[in-house]
């Protein structure tokens, strides 16, 4: 569980006039500005190739911006050292297949403990408290008992949950997640979203790329619709819409994905979106 250590002031996250571009291509999104407060949970929705991952990497500070800036607690994120950045924000990268070679593999617990790296000095080792955080995070994602397993013996879903555990061990005020539900079964999808929702309620800011608008409506407070620079959407090049989660409706989603989508209500009155 989150202990709320290492940050006491509620974080704010602000994007000013950000333009995301791949090399010399048309911009994927233009002059994007929005602000989030502690407790907010943002769902980034968009088609494949709309620039969701590129945007998320720029928001996290690991890749430089071409134009515009990202501010955390009134500090320009891109002017901080990598270590300072890592104390403020965590990033769950997209899983790439074959990302790790077999010869260079570590145990599940070691992998989870890497989340403590930004808080441990060069000459220090992980202490008992760090190990406890590691065990707690592994238990939260349901990987208890697998601590000494090699990472490359895990299934895709288990590996994804291990990456989430690492993010929870890091426990940064701002959490950016690239498709956190990839490879997860339905039960674990909901468990992970509930974990993230709990963190938002504790004062974290959660920003995630999702592919399920229904789950976004259920668990997020805000949305960012990235239309990308594809002509099909007819909303102009590099357009993006930011707003409360109520912005998500069948008309916008049809335009966003370039596919007719209708909205229905479940028995519990949850919003569900179905492609025609």
């Amino acid at each position, binding site marked *: 569980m989150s202990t709320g250590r290492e940050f006491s002031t509620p974080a704010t996250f602000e994007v000013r006039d950000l333009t995301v571009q791949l090399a010399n291509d048309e911009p994927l999104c233009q002059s994007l500005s929005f602000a989030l407060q502690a407790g907010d949970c943002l769902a980034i929705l968009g088609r494949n190739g709309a620039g969701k991952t590129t945007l998320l990497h720029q928001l*996290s500070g690991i890749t430089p911006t071409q134009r515009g800036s990202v501010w955390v607690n009134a500090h320009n994120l891109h002017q901080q050292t990598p270590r300072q950045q890592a104390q403020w924000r965590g*990033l769950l990268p997209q899983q*790439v297949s074959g990302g790790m070679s077999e010869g*260079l593999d570590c*145990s599940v617990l*070691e992998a989870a403990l890497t989340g403590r790296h930004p808080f*441990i000095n060069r000459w220090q080792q992980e202490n008992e408290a760090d190990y406890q955080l590691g065990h707690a995070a592994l238990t939260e994602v349901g990987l208890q008992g697998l601590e000494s397993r090699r990472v490359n013996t895990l299934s895709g879903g288990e590996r994804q949950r291990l990456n989430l555990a690492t993010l929870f061990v890091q426990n940064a005020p701002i959490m950016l997640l690239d498709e956190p539900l990839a490879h997860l079964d339905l039960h674990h999808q909901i468990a992970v979203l509930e974990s993230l929702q709990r963190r938002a309620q504790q004062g974290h800011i959660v920003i995630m790329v999702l592919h399920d608008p229904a789950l976004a409506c259920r668990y997020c407070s805000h949305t960012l619709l990235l239309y990308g620079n594809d002509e099909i959407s007819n909303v102009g090049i590099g357009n993006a819409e930011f707003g409360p989660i109520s912005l998500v409706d069948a008309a916008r989603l049809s335009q966003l994905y370039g596919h007719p989508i209708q909205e229905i209500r479940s028995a519990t009155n949850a919003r569900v979106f179905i492609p025609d």
Partner: protein
Amino acid sequence: MRLPRHIALMLGLTSLAFISLAWALLAGSSVAGWQDVWPALNGGGGTAGEVIRTLRLPRALAAFACGGLLALSGALLQILLRNPLADPYVLGVSGGASLAALLALAVGWSGWAMQGSAFVGALIAMLLVFALAHRRGPWSSTRMLLTGVMVASLCSACIALILSLAPDANLRGMLYWLMGDASQAEHPLIALSVLLLGVTITLPLARELNLLARGEISARALGVNVTHLSRWVFVLTSLMTAIAVTTIGAVGFVGLAVPHVTRFLLGHDQRIVLPASVLLGGSLLTCADTLARTLLDPVQLPVGVFMALIGAPLFLWLLSRRFA
């Protein structure tokens, strides 16, 4: 990190290092005993002392230092390029050094002149790989690997050309140099100090290297300055390889296999793997060199050949046990 098994294995490796050095001092055609060693190190001991002090000790230390340098470089490069097949020679450093050394031998240079040109050749190859791999766009491990492999094959083509054109009188010296030869290694101090420097620089970086091994994006996300780290590790490994190649010739196998053996035995925490690789690599090369100079005494065999003769079966045995 704090497991008793790790401490025991590290102690074992340290003793192995001392045993290999002691064996290197005692073994040889003019037999020396334990009683000769201490007086010899203090500057006495008559003929046996003289042999130990001026011949065997520098050579044993040079072999140990080069083994350590190559193993440490290999361990670092396998992380930097995130490729288990990476070894110090993959960057073309050895190719450049060998080419320059053979050119020096071909024009009749030897001793310091030859070693100096080997070092210059290693640096030129390293700068070439660095410049080509960085020319456009961001750092990429695949591109660096491919550039290194290409520079290395270019060098070996030139080496083959020189060997086929060289006069017979020079051929034997050239072949010995290519196969690794510690008999020229009279000045171990440079190699030892570079090894010490390498260990001192990399040990504080070990935790960041652990993260880098898990992938570049997640390392960046956890606050590792990947660009700086990669650049410094590249420069350091190139220098360490250049020193090792200059001191002892092109000895293969240590850099590739020793880090793997260490990981089989001790896991994947670089805080353990890096120092353990140094100890194991140094001990193995010292033993190989002692065997190379005593087995067919007075004929001195190239140490590189022995290294692979001992190392490859050992490595295969460990590999089959691990996946059995």
